[in-house]
């Protein structure tokens, strides 16, 4: 029974993709299957979260081959929280997409590829060994290449070349790192690696592999100085696709950093923490400064992803339990808020007729609902109480203060202020200032899209009001990461 809850978040998108690809190419059928599959994933993800919450780490040996020889799937609190966030993003984005994606793109196989992407994301979150993590990354990337190219023009294809090239480079680093590690240690199972690299000599020998993996995950997460693929690719896709990418893709990179650099390579033992701290600070600063110079809704938001990734990596680089907990809190907050902002960005473009801030305006007078829907995630991202973003930054800064990382605290505060500036810019330009031209775009916004944005907004408020509950969950997650014994027992069997 336990096994099913871990496998279900992988099987549901797989089955949904199969039904979509084998079934008739009618838009109605495709949308129904896409939506049902996404809802199924949401249910499966909540099931996994509840089971892990009650029972602790759950591991499955696929095909009944024992670890470390077979393929292991394992879900601890971190995996379960990430899968749960994925389920929420999947359902809301697919709901939104039913109102955005045109029929010809839908019949070309849009939804099967969305589900293959979700398959890769969920697989990466529950993968119990490094090679399977690699395979799931590839599944996810292949689907994302197709989604970027589907139904977009020449400009989008050109920009996605940067995305493809850099991500393939990251995959190459990843694979070489995996090869090094396997050559030295003879295993790729996370739990087994954790035991074998407990020996300082082995850990020292595995240093090159650790660095290669750090670079690979860094590119995938979009850290300084290898983030430029992200703002190049995201603003050119459809809004639903860019929201899906914004919510999930870079976070898989951050998840991989969190998983591998706690369980397999403890950052502190490798002495990588100060370097990573510097990278995180540079990521935060460069992302937010680049965002400040943009005047296009999704470009601003894309550069903000980079800056926010910096916060998460910073939290990891503090190498304290509190730091890890604030990283977990930050990721969950970020996935919900960022997805929502991209979706609302789509509605802004629809209501205002453009994404260029100088061509739109006056939305606050004409679109009260939209104004509210933008205000909630924007205030949350900017870090205003009582929304989740305030607590995410608050916990992070407190953890940094307790770790005596004064420079990190300074960066977090200053970058936070600049984030407010960018959000205020979208607010003033799109909502406050009078519309520059007589744009009579007064047709009602699609209801499905509004509902999707409202659902995410409600979650943002809930995470803010219930911050204490989420924080205690994050603390328990961090303790699981800091002391891997429970994970090891679940995967390798209890030695006692």
């Amino acid at each position: 029974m336990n096994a099913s809850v871990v496998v279900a978040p992988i099987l549901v998108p797989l089955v949904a993709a199969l039904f979509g690809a084998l079934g008739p190419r009618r838009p109605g059928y495709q949308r129904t299957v896409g939506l049902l599959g996404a809802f199924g994933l949401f249910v499966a993800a909540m099931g996994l979260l509840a089971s892990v919450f009650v029972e602790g780490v759950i591991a499955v040996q696929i095909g009944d081959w024992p670890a470390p020889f077979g393929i292991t799937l394992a879900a601890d609190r971190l995996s379960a929280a990430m899968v749960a966030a994925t389920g929420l993003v999947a359902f809301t984005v697919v709901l939104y997409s039913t109102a955005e994606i045109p029929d010809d793109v839908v019949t070309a196989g849009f939804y099967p590829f969305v589900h293959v992407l979700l398959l890769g994301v969920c697989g990466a979150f529950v993968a119990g060994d490094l090679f399977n993590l690699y395979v799931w990354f590839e599944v996810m990337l292949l689907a994302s290449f197709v989604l970027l190219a589907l139904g977009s023009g020449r400009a989008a294809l050109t920009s996605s070349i940067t995305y493809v090239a850099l991500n393939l480079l990251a995959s190459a680093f990843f694979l070489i790192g995996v090869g090094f590690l396997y050559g030295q240690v003879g295993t790729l199972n996370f739990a087994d690696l954790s035991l074998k690299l407990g020996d300082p000599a082995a850990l020292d020998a595995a240093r090159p592999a650790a660095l290669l993996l750090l670079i690979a995950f860094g590119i995938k997460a979009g850290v300084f100085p290898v983030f430029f693929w992200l703002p190049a690719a995201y603003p050119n896709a459809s809004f639903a696709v860019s929201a899906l990418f914004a919510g999930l893709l870079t976070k898989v990179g951050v998840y991989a950093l969190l998983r591998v650099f706690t369980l397999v390579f403890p950052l502190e033992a490798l002495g990588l923490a100060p370097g990573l701290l510097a990278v995180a600070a540079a990521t935060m600063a460069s992302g937010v400064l680049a965002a400040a110079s943009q005047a296009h809704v999704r470009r601003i938001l894309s550069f903000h992803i980079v800056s926010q990734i910096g916060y998460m990596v910073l939290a990891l680089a503090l190498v304290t339990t509190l730091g890890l907990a604030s990283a977990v809190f930050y990721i969950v907050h970020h996935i919900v808020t960022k997805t929502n902002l991209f979706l609302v960005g789509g509605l802004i473009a629809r209501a205002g007729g453009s994404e260029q801030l100088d061509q739109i305006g006056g939305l606050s007078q004409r679109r009260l609902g939209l104004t509210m829907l933008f205000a909630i995630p924007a205030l949350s991202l900017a870090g205003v109480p009582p929304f989740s973003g305030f607590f995410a930054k608050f916990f992070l800064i407190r953890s940094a203060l307790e770790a005596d990382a004064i420079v990190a605290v300074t960066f977090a505060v200053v970058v936070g202020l600049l984030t407010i500036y960018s959000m205020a810019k979208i607010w003033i330009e799109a909502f406050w200032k009078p519309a520059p031209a007589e744009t009579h775009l007064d047709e009602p916004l699609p209801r499905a899209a509004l509902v999707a944005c409202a659902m995410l907004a409600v979650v943002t408020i809930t995470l803010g009001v219930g911050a204490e509950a989420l924080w205690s969950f994050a603390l328990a997650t961090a303790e699981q990461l800091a002391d891997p014994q429970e994970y090891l027992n679940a995967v390798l069997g209890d030695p006692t």
Partner: protein
Amino acid sequence: MSLLILRTASRYLFPLLLLFSVFLLWRGHHEPGGGFVGGLVAATAFVLIALAEGAPSARERLRLAPERLAVCGVAVATLSGAVGWFLGEPFLTGIWWAASPGESPVVGTPLLFDLGVYLSVIGVVLAFLLTLIEETK
């Protein structure tokens, strides 16, 4: 006219290659072979037809669109994993059936999985190659 030999030969080679691919698929359980290499050989049979008689003829013989065939393969492989799952074992556990009780098992879900690989490989390889052949014409 220069294609006459190729055309005649391909007509005889086509069934032979397909037969050989099934043999490889079957043999893969205990000896070298299996779904992947079997699928490649089967795809070669169709590519041979496409070279001799043109891509439409190969598509006609395949009946199903190659992309769809590939998805069918994935579906068959998923199904093979689900068999063990329904019987209460972890996903993808191999389930074997003996011809009669007490004998060593002869047929199991790994063959079904291999069949899925076989179909997927044929589908993917032909989706690439037939498109390329059509574009060079």
